[in-house]
């Protein structure tokens, strides 16, 4: 495996940061301090961390709502994300939107619309632009297993395959779309089978293994970057929380959760790093301390930040037209 030690440690750091930050969002939600809902990627963090860390700086990501790791890896700070969740002016959307429905093109992240798989088409458009301009960049778009039933998923996959666009499509197959289990979502065993119909190669990976997600993402980005066209990656995982933090997910069999708990992505990464003598428990502990501090600082920053002014809600409806040069 050709991954530098510092990159492996960074993957661990982002897994922990994502988990800790979202755990805090969850607590704040239960304390009634979050405006709106709180969706987390608990148990599936390795997917967004892995696929995002494999991108180059100028590439574009079109994430979905369980991709907190994407925001963090791309450089959107915990401070801005915490402020976003608390509805503050210093948040990513300056208080206009709640939680995860944001993006920031300064960091190559396209905003997430709730309508699932819409970002598959939007991501394909970014890839189309790269191809038109002859740029060696790639786009990555993500959705959940439920999102793959929507028309936009199929329209985007087809367009990308026909035009051999430099994009990689990720599916976070976490077994449940809100309360609907996979077997009521599709009549196929693997989501990846959907790619076959578009003449698109697909890969199935352990979505709880960040090294595997990262490695396969990097391979497929390389292929797309060099004109090889799109790939679909199904990341098999399990959503360990409810659809959102309000949802106790009683419809999920407990034994299924117990089984997947043993395969927790952070646990797996710790074992991998220590088992292969890449790092020590002490070094991981020091990363954990750094993460804890960052999350605490983020909360302090968000608490002290002002709310937007009421009149701000009328601003930004239209962009400022670009003047003729």
């Amino acid at each position, binding site marked *: 495996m050709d991954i530098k030690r510092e990159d492996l440690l960074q993957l661990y750091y982002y897994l922990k940061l994502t988990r800790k930050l979202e755990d805090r969002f969850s607590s704040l939600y239960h304390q009634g301090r979050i405006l709106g809902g709180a969706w987390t990627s608990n148990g599936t963090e390795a997917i967004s961390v892995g696929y995002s860390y494999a991108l180059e700086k100028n590439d*574009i990501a*079109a994430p979905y709502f369980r991709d907190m790791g994407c925001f963090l890896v791309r450089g959107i700070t915990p401070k801005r994300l915490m402020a976003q969740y608390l509805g503050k002016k210093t948040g*990513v*959307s*300056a208080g*206009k*939107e709640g939680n995860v*429905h*944001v*993006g*920031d*093109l300064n960091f190559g992240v*396209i*905003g997430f*619309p*709730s*309508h699932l798989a*819409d970002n*598959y*088409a*939007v*991501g*394909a*458009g*970014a*890839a*189309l*632009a*790269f*191809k*038109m301009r002859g740029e060696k960049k790639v*786009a990555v778009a993500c959705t959940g297993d439920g999102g793959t039933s929507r*028309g*936009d998923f*199929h*329209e*985007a996959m*087809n*367009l990308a395959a*026909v*035009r051999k666009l430099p994009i990689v499509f990720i599916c976070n197959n976490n077994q449940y779309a809100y309360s609907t289990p996979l077997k009521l979502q599709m009549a196929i065993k693997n989501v990846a089978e959907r790619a076959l119909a578009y003449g698109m190669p697909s890969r199935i990976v352990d979505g709880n293994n960040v090294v595997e997600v990262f490695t396969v993402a990097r391979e497929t980005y390389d292929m797309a970057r060099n004109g090889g066209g799109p790939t679909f990656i199904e990341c098999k995982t399990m959503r360990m929380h409810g659809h959102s933090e309000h949802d106790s997910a009683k419809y999920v069999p407990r034994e299924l959760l117990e089984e997947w708990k043993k395969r927790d992505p952070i646990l797996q990464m710790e074992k991998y790093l220590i088992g292969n003598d890449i790092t020590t428990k002490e070094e991981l502990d020091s990363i954990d301390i750094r993460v804890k501090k960052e999350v605490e600082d983020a909360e302090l920053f968000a608490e002290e930040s002002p709310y937007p002014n009421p009149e701000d809600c009328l601003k*930004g*409806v*239209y*962009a*400022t037209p*670009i003047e003729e040069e």
Partner: protein
Amino acid sequence: MKEITYLEAIKQAMDEEMTRDPSVFILGEDVGIYGGAFRATEGFLEKYGDLRVLDTPLSESGFTGAAIGAALVGMRPIVEMQFADFISCAFDQLVNVAAKNHYRWAAATPIVVRAPYGGNIHGGAFHSQCIEGFFFKCTWIKNRCPFYSI
């Protein structure tokens, strides 16, 4: 001033913009090889090539979404709905994605969507609708409906 039809005016405007600005491109159904169902892009494929005049699969939502993504990274797409009626298939991408990007996260989404109707072709229930009313409620989309009566 020379009198020309709407169609000629639209064609001329798109031609001028595509010559002036390499980031302008056209996508939609039958806009390339066929030159558009109403011939608005006739000759464009030969002039600008198949990456700037894109014949897309039959997928209004997909190619409208793609136009949005291309616009977000600096392109200036013109989306052609073959008939205005078909815009209903792209409603979600227009009202939830394109229209709200700037308000939500300050990302301008400069796309132009052409939706021709009123060609007096006796098209019936699916080729004759005036669709601008669907979008009147959607503040974030600018509706433009040029007309001229004698």
